[in-house]
């Protein structure tokens, strides 16, 4: 009832208030639906939000609760956890692209180090600290080959956004941000994705739909908040979105091609790794971040230059729900 109570608490008495479930992508799916409801003319204004309280669950309970987003009959019995899902993908990735594990660990470390670097500047981030490549690579193993610094934390958090008509937005703010593309796609449990893994088919379909609606190409995206729930997930996401060739995203991170000032600046919030992953809030939090980055209203050291187009990428479960939004500055 958090949806209804939130509306009531804020004084939106008796308005309809829905709850969405798409695991980690819930907030993005809700944002996309809000966008479609306004675009369809059914509502003028929709507030979309997300909230999570996972940090206080403790690791064993949170691990169990999150694992409920995997296949309860055919995959959880083997003891599958979410670090386990992405650890399986990491070994598949190394094997599919013929990258020695020691090299891949370095590349994954580069993703973590960049995440911590920007997250430290982000006043709203969950984990704000310096982590060296050596520390990132040598953290204790959660699910081989992934260590603690490859994994996002269990976070508490909340985020909200107002989706309204172009006309209203221009009245409400001098810096409106337009949703110019949206896509979503689904898949079955992990083993059922056998023909594509380690690529995530639903992401490719979802992002292609978003690019087509926006009339842009991946190369046109200046800033992206993508789903690095685990470091390997960041590589897989950046490739699936079309930013880098398959098997090459790790090198891109190492060369700084994802850093501030590069052509495709990724996770200037610190990403899920450092900014945190409050499951229900993550998708809306990404939208919030892109809007703030486009407006230049983030902390010094992580303000993108000349950013015109931003993108969000959210993955729910083990690839079951994927949702992408493309945002453009409107001033």
């Amino acid at each position, binding site marked *: 009832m958090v949806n209804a109570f939130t509306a009531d608490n804020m004084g939106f008495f008796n308005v309809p208030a829905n709850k969405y479930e798409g695991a980690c992508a819930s907030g993005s799916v809700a944002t996309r639906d809000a966008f479609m409801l306004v675009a369809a003319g059914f509502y003028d204004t929709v507030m979309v939000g997300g909230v999570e309280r996972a940090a206080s669950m403790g690791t064993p309970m949170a691990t169990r609760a999150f694992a409920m987003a995997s296949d309860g009959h055919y995959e959880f*019995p083997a*003891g599958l956890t979410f*670090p386990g899902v992405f650890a399986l993908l990491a070994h598949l990735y190394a*094997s599919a692209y013929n990258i020695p594990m020691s090299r891949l660990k370095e590349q994954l470390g580069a993703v973590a180090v960049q995440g911590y670097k920007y997250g430290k500047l982000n006043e709203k981030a969950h984990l704000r600290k310096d982590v060296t490549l050596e520390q990132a690579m040598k953290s204790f193993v959660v699910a*081989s080959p992934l260590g603690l610094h490859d994994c996002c934390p269990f976070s508490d958090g909340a985020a909200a956004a107002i989706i309204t008509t172009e006309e209203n937005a221009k009245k409400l703010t001098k810096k409106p941000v337009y949703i110019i593309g949206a896509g979503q796609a689904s898949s079955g449990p992990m083993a059922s994705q056998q023909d594509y893994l380690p690529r995530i088919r639903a992401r490719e379909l979802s992002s292609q739909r978003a690019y087509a609606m926006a009339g842009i190409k991946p190369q046109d995206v200046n800033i992206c908040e993508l789903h690095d729930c685990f470091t390997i997930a960041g590589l897989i996401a950046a490739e699936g979105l079309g930013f880098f060739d398959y098997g090459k995203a790790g090198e891109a991170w190492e060369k700084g091609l994802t850093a501030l000032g590069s052509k495709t600046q990724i996770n200037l919030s610190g990403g899920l790794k450092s900014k945190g992953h409050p499951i229900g809030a993550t998708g809306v939090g990404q939208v919030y971040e892109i809007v703030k980055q486009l407006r230049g209203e983030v902390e010094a050291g992580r303000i993108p230059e000349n950013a015109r187009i931003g993108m969000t990428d959210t993955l729910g479960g083990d690839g079951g729900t994927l949702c992408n939004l493309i945002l453009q500055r409107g001033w």
Partner: protein
Amino acid sequence: MEYKLPWKDYNDALKKGKLLGLKCKDCGTVVANPKMVCRKCAGPNLDIVELSGKGSIKSFTTIFVAAEGRQNECPYTVVLVQLDEGPWTMGNLMDQEPAKLALDKVIGKRVKMMTKVFPGDKYTAGDQARPFFVFDN
């Protein structure tokens, strides 16, 4: 639409060491973890078949941080196996020392299947069998 091979029948058979799957009458594709339709052509005309339980490892991970209720099993190894009939399924790898598993010594290895049962807990509706695999030298 009929559920040809429900979870209960799959679970009961697996507890007896039999891995049941489905074969599509239209395109011949074999489905391991059962669903209502063929995983390739989405056709609903399926026959129940017994799978060999033999195959090769596509990926693995050794889990050191488990979910509540599963901690006593740590560390344990989860594998994705491509069965000889084509489909992938998930299980555990046994008889190996989990901490010593290296990528080049595991991926591609031939395995054969046995069964292990998770007795279930307050979050599950009864027990849950799953395949466990051993190297098939």
